[in-house]
């Protein structure tokens, strides 16, 4: 083992640093046309008429497509966590007779240039009979609220309950009961590169090629094949570089049907690159939830009952993620704690907003905010230290593997390995918690508003089912790894190269990774849910094992030796006793059909592998923040931020660190800045980067990462767990708790984001409480 465990520099960097990485906006095809999409400005209404006559006369316009041109198109199916009840509110690629959110696609203009297509958009006349919109999910579930889909008369598209033990009985027996409401605002991944696609139909070959697909290209190919009524083998999806995924990119959106469909009917390549305003109102939103919790605890701080009813605010339609977000909220709300009596009532509520999907840490960012705020509220109520309350409730290590009693995706939640107490103590020590807390108390007595907050969490990763890999060696001795995983900036090429370079072994410079091309890779699960490293690397190890067998078989012939007398060294196979060796390159030449067939050997050096995990693997961690509140302005200064994270085993610690720190920045956006705000009528108010605020270098503080490998997963040979989301999920919790601590525990924040206005309100409330 040379490469696994080392902070190897990334293979991806050189091309990206030179500006020669190829993104979808860089694809040029001969005769390529450009698409622009007309979107609804109305949050809710009956679509009466779309008049395209004037627009068609615009220079450069080639076609304008409305619902009537799509034929009998089916709605876009769910990919993850599908539920029968949710089918009632799926989205078709274009609005037919109703619009349900601002941003819903109404028509597509195809022109010689994007400028011309946008000119024509302005001349399309749309007649809509406006209907009353419902934007507040609490109102949407009331009697008499406007109904979005007649098949869903209560606006609850899906409903389910997770439960363990007997919550009511435990609440009745608890020393204290808290009843609280929480709100997590609507925000999302917002990658720096907007979405985009280029589609081209080769009439002679009857082959439809799509550039710009990503994340789950094989799944999306199957969906597109179904919607277009084409064999999947006649569709080729090609992943390029892409400017950030975070859960939202690569899902099957209306445009993923429209652009290929139009390219096929016009027999011309078509390019669609979303603009930023379009992105903010049409790509998946996420996160918005209303929680109503009853919590029972004993005087010593033990939580004995937790009952949550929450509204997961879906938007105007159900998209590909189905019930993924509420499913994970309900499954993972207990986090690292042993809650024997738990009930969670999940409701997928339709409102006139952009449809929602997953965003980095789906379900867990909000769950951690609710859970960790409540842990502090229990501490405040009982006069205990928030750290002590957590230590009292952690699941003991000796109970691992631990079944929480909840389910997700049809499987029980079984934590594979963890030592929460050990990690928490380490986090306290590294943060210098007790010392700093004392200092904060003194500072608060002196009038400063400064405090520390925790955000503990358990992450899930390595979501199955299977992943595929193929490893080949070409005549020059170059090793090519074909993977079904996708590259979303996380460095999958680098970690796969590390794993395969060790497994063969071979110099890492000789390994090249191919991903995201359905013509070169027969199967692929894709990259989501922090699964890439877990499933792709383990499948590559299997494939590399097959290649080793083939190398030995060939070398036995080349060296006239018995396989058991051979050893595979770097890029060659050696006869142990004589030291005679033959290179991978020479063995690949021997495997040429011309020489291999006469020897009765299957030509080529190639091995395939699958990894098919039964259960997910669960990394875990603790966020800690030292925050000071400006009591005049409500401005927050983060003096210190630390993430303790147990990864099981790090293939590349530098990349794990990068994931955690970068994830934290996104969590900070969700905790302090980002919100898709709507007015009461359903108009989106944050449609630009002037209103939807991403964290800049001025907002994100230095972050200390305490990475441990205390709990390798017993569920895969490499022992790895995922790294993608743990940096994000604890931020809202830690920062909100720190603010409350800074205000002396006299006020409890129950809403994100922590905008200066909201923090200022909290300061006033704390001052009022202190005065009483």
């Amino acid at each position, binding site marked *: 083992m040379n490469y696994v465990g080392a902070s190897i*520099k*990334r293979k*991806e*960097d*050189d091309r*990206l*640093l*030179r*500006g*020669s*990485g*190829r*993104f979808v*906006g*860089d694809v040029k095809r001969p005769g390529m046309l450009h698409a622009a999409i007309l979107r609804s400005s109305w949050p809710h209404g009956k679509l009466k008429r779309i008049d395209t006559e004037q627009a068609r006369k615009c220079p450069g316009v080639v076609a304008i497509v409305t619902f009537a041109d799509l034929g009998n198109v089916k709605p876009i199916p769910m990919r993850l966590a599908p539920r029968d009840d949710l089918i009632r509110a799926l989205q078709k690629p274009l609005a037919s007779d109703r619009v349900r959110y601002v941003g819903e696609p109404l028509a597509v203009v195809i022109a010689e240039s994007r*400028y011309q297509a946008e000119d024509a958009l302005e001349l399309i006349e749309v007649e809509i009979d406006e209907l009353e919109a419902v934007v507040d999910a609490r109102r949407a579930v009331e009697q008499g609220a406007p109904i979005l889909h007649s098949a869903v008369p209560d606006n609850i598209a899906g409903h389910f309950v997770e439960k363990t033990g007997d919550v009511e009985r435990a609440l009745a027996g608890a020393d204290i009961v808290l009843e609280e409401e929480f709100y997590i605002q609507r925000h999302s*991944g*917002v*990658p*720096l*590169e*907007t979405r985009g696609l280029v589609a081209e139909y080769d009439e002679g070959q009857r082959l439809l090629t799509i550039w710009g697909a990503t994340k789950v290209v094989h799944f999306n190919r199957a969906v597109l094949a179904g919607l277009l009524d084409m064999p999947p083998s006649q569709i080729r999806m090609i992943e390029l*570089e*892409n*400017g*950030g*995924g*975070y859960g939202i990119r690569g899902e099957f959106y209306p445009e993923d049907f429209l652009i290929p469909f139009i390219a096929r009917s016009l027999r011309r390549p078509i390019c669609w690159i979303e*603009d*930023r305003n379009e992105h903010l109102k049409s790509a998946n939103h996420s996160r918005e939830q209303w929680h109503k919790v009853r919590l029972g605890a004993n005087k010593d701080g033990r939580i004995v009952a937790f009952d949550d009813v929450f509204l997961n605010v879906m938007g105007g339609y159900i998209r590909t993620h189905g019930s993924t977000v509420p499913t994970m909220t309900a499954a993972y709300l207990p986090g690292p704690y042993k809650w024997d009596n738990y009930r969670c009532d999940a409701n997928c509520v339709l409102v006139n907003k952009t449809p929602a999907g997953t965003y980095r840490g789906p379900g867990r960012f909000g769950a951690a905010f609710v859970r960790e705020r409540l842990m502090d509220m229990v501490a405040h109520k009982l006069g205990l230290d928030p750290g002590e309350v957590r230590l009292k409730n952690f699941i003991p290590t000796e109970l691992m593997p631990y079944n929480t009693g909840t389910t997700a995706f049809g499987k029980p939640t079984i934590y594979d390995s963890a030592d929460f107490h050990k990690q928490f103590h380490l986090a306290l020590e590294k943060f210098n918690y007790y010392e700093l807390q004392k200092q904060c108390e003194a500072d608060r007595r002196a009038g400063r508003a400064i405090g520390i907050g925790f955000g503990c969490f358990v992450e899930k990763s390595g979501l199955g089912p299977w992943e595929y890999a193929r490893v080949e060696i070409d005549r020059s001795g170059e090793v090519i790894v074909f993977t079904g995983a996708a590259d*979303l*900036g*996380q*460095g999958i090429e680098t970690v796969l190269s590390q794993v395969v370079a060790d497994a063969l072994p071979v110099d890492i410079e000789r390994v090249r990774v191919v991903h995201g091309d359905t013509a070169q890779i027969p199967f692929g699960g894709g990259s989501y849910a922090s699964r890439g490293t877990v499933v792709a690397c383990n499948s590559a190890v299997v494939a590399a094992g097959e290649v080793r067998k083939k190398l030995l078989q060939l070398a036995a012939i080349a060296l006239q030796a018995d396989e058991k007398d051979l050893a595979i060294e770097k890029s060659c196979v050696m006869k142990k006793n004589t030291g005679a060796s033959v290179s991978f390159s020479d063995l690949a030449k021997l495997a040429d059909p011309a020489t291999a067939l006469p020897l009765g050997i299957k030509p080529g050096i190639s091995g395939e592998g699958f990894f098919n995990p039964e259960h997910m693997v669960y990394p875990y961690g603790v966020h800690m923040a030292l925050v000071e509140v400006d009591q005049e302005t409500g401005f927050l200064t983060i003096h210190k931020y630390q993430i303790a994270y147990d990864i099981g085993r790090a293939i590349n610690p*530098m*990349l794990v*660190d*990068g994931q955690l*720190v*970068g*994830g*934290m*920045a*996104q969590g900070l956006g969700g905790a302090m800045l980002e919100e898709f705000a709507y007015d009461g009528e359903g108009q989106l108010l944050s449609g*630009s*980067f*002037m209103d939807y605020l*991403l964290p*800049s*270098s*001025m907002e*994100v503080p*230095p*972050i200390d990462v305490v990475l441990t490998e205390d709990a390798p997963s017993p569920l895969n040979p490499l022992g790895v767990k995922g790294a993608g989301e743990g*940096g994000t999920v604890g931020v809202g919790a830690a920062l909100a708790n720190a603010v409350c601590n800074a205000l002396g525990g006299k006020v409890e924040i129950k809403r994100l984001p922590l905008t200066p206005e909201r923090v200022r309100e909290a300061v006033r409330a704390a001052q009022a409480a202190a005065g009483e």
Partner: protein
Amino acid sequence: MNKRKVRLEINGIQYEGEAEPRRLLSDFIREDLGLHGTHVGCEHGVCGACTIQWDGKAVRSCLALAVQANGARLRTVEGLAPNQDDLHPIQQAFTEMHALQCGFCTPGILMTAQALLRDNPQPSEAEIRDGLSGNLCRCTGYQNIVKAVLLAAEKLAQK
């Protein structure tokens, strides 16, 4: 709309093209001249992905029109590395510090960083954070970018 002739210099090479007066400089550079390294993230001057250098100053190419750049001397990310084998010291620092993930914002950040280091060869961490505040990165959390610019300053000082 009538097209106007646009002549300009990018990375020391003369280019000539035609553009409608409304055509964005970013589109002209990318689509008409085929220099795809400059990326477009918002088209309203906030994200900084399209940052190039104009007479040595970092500017957003989505906020300028191609016709305004007639006669200008520009630099884009493609002009940074000295050759196909070697990277510029700033680029080297970025890979050593893991200062990029998806890489979409990277060209704009490199151009900003180079201009910043030219004006202030030994910036403090606070000055770097301030200097980069107009370039959004959604992947890295900036920490490693700041470290990379500090390292780049060291590398450039040694040259």
